[in-house]
């Protein structure tokens, strides 16, 4: 069977990114117009479960390479296998969800196949048999439509930009176990650092973020043994982020931060939202003590609903906010956490 659209199912040690299923949803739509089926590509070791999920989310078939050499993600290995599968399938389009793994993967496959790659796509249409992909440039200040003169057109799709198809349990489809010779590469995996706990920012439906303002609670007295001013500030900020975390906990939200908070050492870089951090697009984004600098807005301006809590009524974040509270976050966040807890019956 020829599959005109291939979808790469991205996962970390068997845990899939939800955006992979969104990509299958897009593929199904494109497939209807282009004709030809949707093939999901699953690479890894002991990942048959993912193949099943891909079928349930709408793939017509799965190309499964289950091999010990694919246990760890290594770009060169994965790119080579992916290029081969996409070529053999005769795909016109290759879709990948946008993650920390897939931009490079998409780029490498595009080199292997001498074709165009369009990253972080937020909209796709088919016109006269040709694919048109829309994506943000200049950190979302502009948008561009891109088409590709060669095949396949390689696209990575921004998470949460497309609806996730409802899985249909028991849906049937072919899982083809493909034997691909995996070439040895020079890169070896030494291990994994501790993975950050909690909800991943880019997948989150709700995000609660803190900025420089979270360190700004003069009422808090640091313990006597902390005498250095910078450490006192960090201590105060950590107390502030505890409030942010409690609120996030009630909402099942991920915790975000401004660059100012990250640079001051209040919270790790992995939590940074913005132009030089993560680009997110949740249903609800609550900004606590964040002014709304253009580089921060670049990372969260497409959030569906923005709530801002800031002492300064002139803070630019309010221009984007649907709901705003002018006030001290240390006064507002604790009762807000309780109130939401009550409303959500937790």
């Amino acid at each position, binding site marked *: 069977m020829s599959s005109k659209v291939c979808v790469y199912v991205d996962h970390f040690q068997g845990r899939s990114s939800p955006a992979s299923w969104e990509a299958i949803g897009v593929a199904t739509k494109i497939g209807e117009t282009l004709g030809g089926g949707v093939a999901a590509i699953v690479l890894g070791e002991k990942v048959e479960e993912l193949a099943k999920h891909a079928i349930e989310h709408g793939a017509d078939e799965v190309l499964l390479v289950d091999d010990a050499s694919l246990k760890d*993600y290594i770009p060169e290995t994965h790119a080579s296998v992916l290029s081969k599968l996409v070529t053999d399938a005769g795909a016109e389009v290759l879709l990948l969800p946008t993650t920390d793994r897939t931009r490079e993967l998409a780029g490498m496959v595009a080199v*292997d196949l001498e074709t165009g790659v369009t990253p972080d796509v937020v909209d796709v249409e088919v016109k006269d048999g040709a694919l048109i992909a829309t994506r943000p440039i200049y950190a979302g200040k502009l948008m561009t439509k891109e088409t590709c003169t060669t095949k396949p057109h390689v696209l990575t799709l921004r998470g949460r930009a497309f609806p996730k198809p409802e899985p249909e349990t028991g849906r049937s489809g072919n899982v083809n176990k493909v034997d691909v010779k995996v070439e040895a590469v020079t890169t070896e995996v030494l291990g994994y650092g501790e993975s950050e706990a909690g909800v991943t920012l880019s997948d989150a439906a709700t995000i609660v973020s803190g900025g420089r303002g979270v360190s700004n609670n003069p009422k808090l007295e640091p313990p006597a043994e902390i005498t250095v001013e910078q450490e006192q500030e960090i201590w105060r900020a950590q107390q502030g982020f505890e409030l942010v975390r409690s609120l996030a906990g009630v909402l099942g939200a991920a915790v975000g931060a401004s660059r100012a908070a990250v640079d001051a050492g209040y919270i790790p870089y992995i939590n940074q939202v913005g132009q030089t951090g993560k680009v997110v697009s949740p249903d609800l984004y609550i900004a606590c003590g964040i002014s709304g600098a253009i580089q921060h807005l670049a990372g969260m301006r497409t959030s569906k609903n923005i709530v801002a809590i800031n002492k300064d009524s002139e803070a630019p974040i309010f221009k984007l906010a649907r709901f705003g509270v002018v006030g001290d976050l240390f006064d507002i966040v604790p*009762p807000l956490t309780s*109130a939401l807890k009550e409303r959500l019956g937790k």
Partner: protein
Amino acid sequence: MNIVVCVKQTPDTAATVTVSDGEVSWGDAPLVLNPWDEYAVEQALLSKEAHGGKVTAISLGSEGAKDALKQALAMGCEEAILINDPAFENADSLVVSKALAAAITKLGEIDLAFFGRQAVDSDTGVTFAQVARRLGWPALSLVAKVEALDPGAGTIAVERMLGSARQRLQTKLPAVVSVVKEINEPRYPSFMGIRKASKAEIPVWSKADIDLAEVPEAALRWPEIFAPPKIETECEFIEGETAEEVANKLADRLVEEKVI
């Protein structure tokens, strides 16, 4: 060590960017060294300072991109090269990667090539991977920490970002490394550095200079560039006598509007 760092010139991130008749404009906002590339330059310099050798900064761009290269020189790079040729005018990442890979090959005997995570104008974030692929070198991407660099053994070990996890990798040189902000704190150019850079003559390489007889056409076309629909929001300010009252009102509104 012989180190390369690839840098791009981009409009300042604070610029207001507009488009009219397909022409993008950033008004009189300054053009700067792509912010991500500052971290790449810094890491190249740190590697050189630890192990000796030299750093060459390469940029593909217009004549004006020499300013970005001068910034890299002022920070401490020994040499800079501008790739400029009409053949690269409508380049996509496929073409840019071809040119950069050809320039790195031309330089010869390179141990490491550093890149930023992403250019803040095109927001592509794939060029480093494509250059690595063209060179046949391993790519260590989104590197947050260099754990060990051993030019004698010809190895490098790093920690890379991988979603919510971190992966520790080791590979053989030569390699391509793309860096994220966490890796270091870029230095400010010294006064001496700025003076030296301002006097530097930056060589310009054409496609012939990097031995590219044929530059392929870009695979991508951009039929339309447009401003995103303006987000029309009227902020509803929640007020009350006490914090509790405000918090409860806000919670109620979020429930009423089905936000939660």
